[in-house]
């Protein structure tokens, strides 16, 4: 699999895909409801924090070129730690795919298919995911690179087209409910940068490993800009309407776009773009889940268990009984899962692995020094 190397643009698009898809879903709503008018400052703050964290991750990964986090776990604690971390990330990928799939399908059901079963909508997505995964990782990454500029343009277009509807004063007071909420409590909004998770897995796939730092920083910076644009759009139009409605907040913003009497109701077009983008995102996460599974069990062929995973995701997606539970899982549970696994666990693992690496190097060095006089 590692023969399928990916270029810098493909890698950047890979990390960005998580952010843009969650931006289309309920991420801005969650952030605005937690920091109100201080959201703009909060986004700027967490983007800086995310950039610092990513820089740290790149530094920590420097000593393990071409190794992913499972290899590093293997180095740190042997097979048992590799298995533990593998299961953790496998569960993470399956969880995110399941909940994102259900959430988006519910949104589509509300907007276009009120009388259709959500299961049918999910099956259509799952069929697409299975087909793309059969085509292979490289095909998915390439497709994602193709879709990414379109979706980024759609977010920018929604922002620019809504200029006329903006009330910039809605961002006042700048610190919202106070400095504590905006900066300290608001740090939990770091979960928005969950795309960082791919940075732990892409090193073996990069064509040029020396560009890893550049890729990571650019992708996180672009994610921050993308989040800022979408949150600003929603905050300046109508924060109350966004928190009141169950559908995708950016879709609500796109419904306000009109250019005179000639160009109206572009929302359906945006939804089509976002559907394609979501398929790309789900396929990538699904692909990483299968790769982790493959690595854990040392399986050569991936094809047979794709169906198994699809069934698992479908079943898991149907567990939440109502929209309230989905929103709770998507906003609250997902937030803590990201903060714990992507930031706390993975970063700690990298730090410990670096300490172990340094200790080993020191021992090797000391042995050499000891031996030198002899």
């Amino acid at each position, binding site marked *: 699999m590692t023969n399928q190397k990916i270029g810098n643009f493909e890698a950047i698009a890979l990390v960005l895909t998580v952010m843009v898809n969650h931006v289309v879903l309920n991420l801005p709503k969650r952030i605005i409801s937690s920091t109100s008018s201080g959201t703009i400052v909060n986004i700027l703050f967490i983007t800086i924090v995310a950039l610092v964290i990513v820089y740290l991750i790149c530094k920590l990964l420097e000593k393990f070129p071409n190794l992913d986090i499972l290899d590093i776990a293997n180095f740190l604690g042997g097979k048992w730690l590799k298995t533990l971390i593998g299961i953790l990330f496998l569960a993470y990928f399956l969880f995110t795919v399941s909940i994102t799939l259900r959430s988006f399908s519910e949104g589509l059901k509300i907007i276009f298919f009120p009388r259709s079963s959500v299961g049918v909508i999910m099956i259509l997505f799952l069929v697409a995911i299975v087909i793309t995964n059969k085509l292979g990782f490289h095909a998915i990454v390439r497709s994602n690179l193709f879709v990414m500029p379109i979706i980024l343009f759609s977010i920018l277009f929604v922002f620019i087209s809504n200029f006329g509807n903006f009330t910039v004063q809605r961002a006042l007071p700048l610190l919202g409910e106070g400095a504590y909420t905006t900066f300290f409590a608001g740090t939990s909004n770091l979960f928005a940068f969950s795309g960082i998770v791919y940075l732990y897995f892409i090193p073996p796939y990069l064509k040029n490993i020396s560009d890893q730092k550049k890729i990571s920083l650019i992708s996180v910076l672009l994610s921050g800009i993308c989040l800022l644009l979408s949150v600003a759009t929603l905050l300046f139009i109508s924060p109350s*309407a966004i928190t009141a409605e169950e559908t995708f907040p950016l879709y609500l913003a796109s419904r*306000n776009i009109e250019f005179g009497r000639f160009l109206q109701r572009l929302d359906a077009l945006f939804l089509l773009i976002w559907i394609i983008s979501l398929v790309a995102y789900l396929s990538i996460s699904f692909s990483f889940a299968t790769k982790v599974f493959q690595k854990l069990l040392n399986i050569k062929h991936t094809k047979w268990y794709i169906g198994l995973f699809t069934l698992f995701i479908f079943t898991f997606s149907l567990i939440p009984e109502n929209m309230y539970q989905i929103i709770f899982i998507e906003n609250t549970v997902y937030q803590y899962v990201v903060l714990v696994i992507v930031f706390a666990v993975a970063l700690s693992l990298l730090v410990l692995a670096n300490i172990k690496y340094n200790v080993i190097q020191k021992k090797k060095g000391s042995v050499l020094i000891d031996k030198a006089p002899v």
Partner: protein
Amino acid sequence: MTWPMQWQFGFDVGESERIKVTFQFTKPNSSGENTSSETAPTIVDTVEAACIDSAVNLVNTFVSKEVNLSHCKVIVFSEEMARQGISKEIYSLMNKVEVRPDSNIIISTTTAQEYIESVNPSLENLVAKFYEILPRSSEYTGFTTDIHLIDFFNKLESKSEEPIAILGTPVSESNESGGSGGSGSSGGSGGSGEGGSSSSTLPANNGIENIGLAVFKNDKLIGKLTKIETLSNLIITNKLKSCRLSIPDPDDQSKAIDFYLTLDTKPQIKVSILNGTPYVNIKVKLNGRISSINQISEEITDERVARIENSASHYLQTHILNYLYKTAKDYKSDISRYW
């Protein structure tokens, strides 16, 4: 499958149920069947129900195709209903994905049913086009403003601003009472202020006119603004695109001078607290082109121009002050957005 095109619906206070909802549809395929000179026929249906969803359900029982609100352009509330409070309906409408946030909110001085039944788009073949163009006429009349559902909802939720809506009147009604916006209030008595554009001189082909604004305090209607007060609101909120205004000739009060007005710069608003009371200072800069006067331009001296300028400034200042006092003191509703 063709859905009946549903262009507007209105809310009245119900007799046997809480609300009476009136729907206006265009006959499916009617636009295709008619010749270009004919206006597409519309159907008006009214039902009484406890809420909007129940009303739609009821309508669905006697129309052969499912009603879809996604084409709705205008939402009309009767004055009686608006005075009782319309937050429940506004929240319901905002929660309905199919209702578009750019639908216009109109408060009818009569019942919503009467307003909808009076619609007669004589210059348009399609009702939809009529509903799109009508609120936008405020860009060149200054008689009302384009208020959307989302604007109304935002202001309803806002702690610093109160909602406003378009004031609509069936023309027969406005003729009887001498004009909706201008009647019975200070702005109307100015006469020359709205002189050349008096509603009573309009041919009653459209059947409705949207002149003036409905002022709310929270979700309840508390008052109405005349044409000149609406113009004052547009000037202060920086929403005036252009309009025509008639003022008395300073040299001959029996005559009028017509202006084509546009905003020169955004109004500068400064608010300070004096003795615990907010003191609002508004600096307005307008461009006025004299569009009709009883002299040819070569005969107008600089002194005469200065007198006309002063007269126009004084005229507008008086009406803006009246508007501000009316909304602040009488209505206690902040619709001017001093920021």
